[in-house]
């Protein structure tokens, strides 16, 4: 069994009001050095079999089809340590 991590973030040009809300809460808590927050999603997938090229290719397809919306989001994936 292999594990693969997929991380999904809004594209830089897409407004992230949730990240902004977290930023302003950070400042209210006194963490004034924080200058920007972007909020994303992390998926942990468990696969039958090894995380070889074919398996990672399938996960990439899944990420493009379902986990991320390429219109507004970008994603990265890697085998878990």
């Amino acid at each position, binding site marked *: 069994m292999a594990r693969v991590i997929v991380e999904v973030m809004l594209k830089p040009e897409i407004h992230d009001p949730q990240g902004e809300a977290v930023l302003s809460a950070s400042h209210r808590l006194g963490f004034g050095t924080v200058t920007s927050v972007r909020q994303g999603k992390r998926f942990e997938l468990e696969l039958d079999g090894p995380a070889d090229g074919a398996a990672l290719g399938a996960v990439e397809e899944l990420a493009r089809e379902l986990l991320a*919306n390429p219109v*507004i989001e970008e994603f990265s994936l890697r085998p878990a340590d």
Partner: protein
Amino acid sequence: MRIGVVTFPGSLDDTDAARAVRYAGAEPVPLWHADRDLRGVDAVVLPGGFSYGDYLRCGAIARFSPVMGELVPAARAGLPVLGICNGFQILCEAHLLPGALTRNAGLRFITRDVRLTVENAGTAWTSGYTSGQQLFVPLKSGEGAYAADEATLDELEASGRVVVRYDGAAPNGTARGIAGICDESGNVVGLMPHPEHAIDALTGPSPDGLGFFTSVVATFAGALR
């Protein structure tokens, strides 16, 4: 005319959509998300709500439901489809419409009657309006800010595919004031505000929304003639 209204787990406005269809003189036909069957309807409404709990992204799971497997090719072949609120989100996720709906700029869920201007009175769902006509209908959504890249927005504007726009400052931070758009053919229309909640003075802020439903009935009658 028979107009299908799809119910997904989490749909809220299917009853009002069916009522609007009836008011417009058509027969509402309930369609179920898990059925691979459009029951021979002449048009389809995807109603508002929170299909599949809005898990992952609004509309992202609904897109892969069995009924959508039938609806997507039918819409591409010319079946009129109206997506309202969550239905608009589903149409974007299914790539029947470009772009995506993102979280409201102010993070608040907005429930308010809003003024819209009809920009394209040539679609299957807006032919009964006149270009420039003002509508007063409810908006109730948390993720109603339309987003697309600049090239797509320019293309939508240049080809007249912005169907309705908010009057004045958009309440949710939507790109270029866009409240609703259509596909190249004008058969598939999606909008965030709720015309089905504004079909008579007793239950809505105006009867302005009924025109979406009477338009498609007239379009259908014209096609039969």
